[in-house]
């Protein structure tokens, strides 16, 4: 309690002690470059005929890129459990409605009755 108050009086000191991690610019550069590489990859992959795997690869690369941004640019890797939990909760409520949504390929027939995620 009193310690907290002292910290309040010396925000700089508190800042150094258990304030969040400062990511060095080197990490940012590496992430930046890998994001560019992944962008090139995903564009390249879209030019290769892979059937059902085209959307899978594209979305997988999207997920990897997003993960990199969340972990490093947004600093979740170094942040509190609470933030991680928040991110996870967001991910869960966002993706849960899509479960069972069939990834449509050109081969499968589609009728309104068949297409749809689990809640339809």
């Amino acid at each position, binding site marked *: 309690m009193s310690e907290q108050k002292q910290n309040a009086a010396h925000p700089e000191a508190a800042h150094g002690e258990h304030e969040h991690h400062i990511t060095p610019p080197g990490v940012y550069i590496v992430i930046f470059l890998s994001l560019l590489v992944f962008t090139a990859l995903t564009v390249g992959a879209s030019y290769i005929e892979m059937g059902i795997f085209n959307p899978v690869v594209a979305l997988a690369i999207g997920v990897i890129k997003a993960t990199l941004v969340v972990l490093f640019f947004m600093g979740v890797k170094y942040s509190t459990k609470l933030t991680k939990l928040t991110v996870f909760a967001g991910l869960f409520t966002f993706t849960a409605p899509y479960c069972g949504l069939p990834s449509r390929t*050109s*081969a*499968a*027939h*589609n*009728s*309104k*009755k068949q297409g749809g995620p689990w809640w339809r």
Partner: protein
Amino acid sequence: MDHISPVLWQFLVKWMTNFALFPPEASKIAPQMDALYFFMVLVSLVGLTIVALLITVFCILYSKERHPVAEQIEGSTLLEATWTIIPLGLFLVMFVWGALLYFRIYTPPANAMNIYVVGKQWMWKAEHPGGQHEINALHIPTGKPIQLTLISQDVFHSFSIPAFRVKREAIPGRYTSVWFEATMPGTYHLFCTQYCGTNHSAMIGEITVLTPDDYKKWLAESTSGMSLAQNGERLFASLSCNACHNAKPDARGPSLANVYGAKLALSNGGTAIADDAYLRESILNPSQHITQGYAPIMPTYQGQISEDGVIALVEYIKNLDSNYRIEQTLNTTDLLPEGDGKNSPAASRSVEQPAGQNAAPKGTVKQ
């Protein structure tokens, strides 16, 4: 005082004569629905009584006068588990029972007589296979399973017959269905229960349940001369559908004979069962429903045929299927007036039938 008491008197008389806790049980499913309903009422009453009783007893025993100092109790895992597990068990029973009932109400038997119902602001239009049309009314016989195929022409409506305990939403753009078997002759309410705009409360009608004999009479009186399938046949010709779907060997479109209920191989590689919904969709959005081996040349009829027209076409195509026709004929001959049974397009079609079946292997894979 003079004018109040008659009003009160009327009011009480009305109450006594009309008092009911649930509507008449006029269909086969109604007693089953009521059984579950009263089971739930019972459970609720018991639950409510337990809670009310406990509260009352505790309030008397532990009021401040009698019990000036409270005893602090943390909780009790055993008790809490009890009132978690017992309600959970009861709710699960209700869930299973309810689901069984649900599937019974929405799974029509194969031999059901099909009546089409189109909802529009603000009326119900019923179309009987024999060609009879009804607005805000429906005549049906007792003792026959009746399937309703519902669709809406504009907004959501809901077709509800409380005395039968059935209800189904009529949705724009897709068929839904429900079935029932009436047991008691009489007239019953038909309501639209899904709010549908200004005259929602005027979208009501009467279900008239007749004995099979009376129903036969009614059919004879209200016939329009042409069955629904015959109407469809006429429309089929006037839209020049038969220019392609003519069952000739070099036809540009697949033969429609025996298509209904068949598993079709589609040009995009998939398969589909040709049910009512499929037939409707393939008229309005043909390009997604091209049978294998045919070019995607069929134009869309979206916006050119009303829902009633589509229904007539669907019924016509369904009647081209011999199984369906036999089923429906078996189902309705004892109900139809003399000679009317031959009114179905089957009679006039029997000459073309062999040709249709010749072409069938090309487009359809019947399994």
